[in-house]
């Protein structure tokens, strides 16, 4: 009898994961959570009702396809678009090779880019626009056919190269050095291709839209890196003169807003430079962005330098390495590895900050926005254009922040 009661089975705790169980755990666990959920639902309902009504009935989305080209590449001459195509294909080739060799995060980036390209291939935004134009003239135009398909051919070509080189890269590990060199060279290559030479020179005033935004951000991110590392080393130097100069530079730049520096570029540079000194506005913006972000980069790198145990430096000195060798081979690799997430975060900030250069007359996305809204046909369509541009910025920044999170997980930062 007693045995019976003792061995009576007790039901294990309910571990079922049905939808009801999930709802109870995550939405209605306590009375205040229930209230919060209801409030949240009401808010979402009102928000989506208003927003969706606006999106589908009031908003005039024709402004986007009609201006898509100018949003993407600005006033870049359309017959020269092959230049952008070649740059695009070069970069995708390099990315494909790197993805094949390094896998991991690079591969994920490549996959994301494939996804975006496929989306662009399939979304017929520009077709809508061209179809409208054709129906107005009611004749089939070879030129328009060309315009619609030429972009897709470049996109498709880029995709094929990306996937193809991925498989090549997977087999050939010895390509590493060449690819790093390729990435470094891709930068001047891009500038030369976009600028052209001889008779076909394209003035930088024709650079605009997303193209210019990405270009400015890329230049800022890449060029601020060496400068930032030097400043960080300078700030930690044992030589007081160098330490003081670096510190003053970093603190001054970090203490003032970016538009001060942009304005100094346009207002003060002519005063501080010899009489006939002229600097292209795009270059000016690039220099200003680089000088600005190098101070922030320096602080990031300094954070990394502080994280490197002093034993590393002492060990390097003990085996007789010079200062520069200690830094390049021992300290910096460890320091930078530790602050990669911070550097990516700074890159996102820089991408967003490029929106400010339109105050010195550049027509990147924000400048294009202004010129579209200045057009009589599209006045008053602030919200539509702004939301579209916001989506573009969001896609780039958000994917960068996901990359940074992945790296953070790889490095094991913040596991507790």
């Amino acid at each position, binding site marked *: 009898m007693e045995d019976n009661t003792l061995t009576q089975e007790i039901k294990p705790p309910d571990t079922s994961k049905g939808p009801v169980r999930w709802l109870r755990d*995550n*939405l209605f*666990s306590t009375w205040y*959570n229930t209230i*919060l*959920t209801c409030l*949240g*639902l009401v*808010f*979402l309902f009102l928000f989506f009702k208003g927003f969706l009504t606006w999106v589908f009935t009031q908003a005039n989305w024709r402004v986007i396809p009609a201006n898509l080209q100018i949003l993407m590449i600005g006033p870049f001459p359309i017959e020269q678009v092959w230049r952008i195509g070649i740059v695009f294909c070069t970069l995708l080739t390099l990315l494909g090779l790197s993805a094949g060799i390094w896998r991991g995060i690079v591969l994920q980036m490549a996959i994301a880019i494939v996804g975006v390209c496929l989306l662009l291939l399939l979304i017929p935004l520009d077709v809508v626009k061209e179809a409208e134009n054709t129906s107005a003239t009611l004749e089939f135009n070879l030129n328009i056919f060309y315009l619609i398909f030429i972009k897709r051919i470049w996109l498709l070509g880029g995709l094929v190269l990306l996937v193809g080189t991925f498989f090549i890269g997977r087999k050939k590990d010895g390509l590493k050095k060449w690819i790093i060199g390729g990435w470094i060279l891709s930068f001047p290559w891009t500038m030369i291709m976009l600028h052209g030479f001889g008779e076909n020179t394209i003035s930088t005033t024709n650079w605009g839209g997303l193209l210019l935004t990405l270009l400015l951000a890329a230049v800022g991110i890449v060029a601020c890196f060496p400068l930032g590392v030097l400043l960080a080393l300078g700030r930690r130097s*044992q*030589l*007081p*003169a*160098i330490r003081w*100069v670096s510190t003053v530079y970093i*603190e*001054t730049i*970090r*203490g*003032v*807003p*970016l*538009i*001060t520096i942009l*304005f*100094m570029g346009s*207002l*003060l540079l*002519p*005063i*501080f*430079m*010899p*009489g006939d000194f002229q600097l292209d506005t795009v270059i000016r913006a690039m220099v200003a962005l680089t000088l600005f972000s190098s101070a922030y980069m320096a602080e990031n790198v300094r954070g990394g330098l502080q994280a490197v145990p002093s034993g590393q430096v002492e060990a390097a000195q003990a085996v007789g390495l010079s200062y520069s060798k200690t830094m390049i081979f021992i300290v910096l690799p460890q320091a930078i590895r530790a602050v990669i997430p911070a550097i990516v975060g700074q890159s*996102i900030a820089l991408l*967003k*900050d490029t*929106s*400010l250069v339109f*105050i010195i007359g550049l027509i990147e996305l*924000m400048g294009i*926005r202004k010129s579209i809204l200045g057009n009589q046909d599209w006045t008053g369509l*602030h*919200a539509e254009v*702004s*939301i579209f*541009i*916001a989506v573009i*910025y*969001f896609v780039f*920044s*958000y994917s960068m*922040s996901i990359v940074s999170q992945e790296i953070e997980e790889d490095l094991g930062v*913040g596991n*507790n």
Partner: protein
Amino acid sequence: MQQDSANIPFWRDIRILKILFQVLFIIGIILLALFLYTNMLQGLDDQETELSWDFLFSEAGFDIEEGTYSDPSEEENDSDPSDENLKGFWIGIVNTLRESIEFDPSDTNLKAFWIGIVNTLRVSIVGIFCATIIGFLFGIARLSSNWLISRIAAVYVEIFRNTPLLLQILFWYPLILVLPNVRESINFFDSIFINQRGVFLPSAEPAEGFNTWMWYLLSGIILAILVVIGFAVFRYLSRSRELQQTDRPSFVSNLIFSAKWTAAPIILIVPFLAWFLTPDAPLELSRPELQKFNFVGGIDLTPEFTALLIGLTVYTSAFIAEVVRAGIQSVVKGQREAARSVGLKESQVLRLVVIPQAIQVIVPPLTSQYLNLAKNSSLGIFIAFPDLFQIGKIIIGQTGQSVPTFAMIMTCYLIVSLTTSAFMNWYNRRITRFDSSS
């Protein structure tokens, strides 16, 4: 050994090389500065401007609509009887403060610059206040056990963190301009009005009892400070007898301790007590009232101010939410579990274990967000909000004195950021010292 070092030729002696290198570096910097300076003189010569500070005291010649106080009695009718009754020291101070932000095109450029500083500070301080509240709410909401709430918070944070602030400001600004016109304002309780000319809020204006009240308040505060210091001295003396030399907390930390425990009640009680003692009402509520063309009275926030404020608040709050979330998550799980296992209540776990540790992680990035907000307020230039930067630009446009004006603008921003980072360094040192001692 000494003989060896004496034999080293100077070009291989690291000590001399170090000094030589620095000297060369400084000479390089000086040469660069000289080069820029001579160019500047030449450039200014070409522009036919002379470097001087006289322009600061010449007439501005432009008007500033934003953030300047305009006396309603001057505009309506000069003999406003209610103003006559108000006299006394504190009323005088209020009037001086008001005069300091009165602006007229015949005032000097320096005054215009001052108005710019006031506007920047105004939008920054209000922005910091709002962004902190909203940021903390969303940061905590993101960690909520309620799935829906944490999702909403996450979407909010990601959207506003990943789009440029400038785009957000330029998105809000036209939305304010398409609000209903003045006659059809959105009305809350007849005291808050929202329309396309901005937001109109009620304000507290000094009334008859104001002067007396301020005296009571001042004496109350002095008394309170004396109490705090007295308590700190008492605690310092009594505890230094109990504790070992090494464990004894410094007088400053005693002062902070006693201030922490007495400040809140003092701030709450003293004004009310003073209010109670004052025979007449010290403050009266001034509600915005619709006159011929616009609302009069209360505080009015222009569309530019409102758009900039919304933009700065929303953008910064998204970052603050992340800071708060990271801070709370940085407290190791074991800390909570340990606190629960020694029998603390859930509220005690938060108050005594989680928040003290989280706040150490939160404060440094939070301050840098505050600084960012102050610097980002310069984006008001895109919607013609007359902040420090915008007014500086107007002055440059009118006088051509770009170099001194830029120097002034940069100095203002640098003063704010350097004092903040000095405070931060002090705070960090304090926090880490406490950390190691406890």
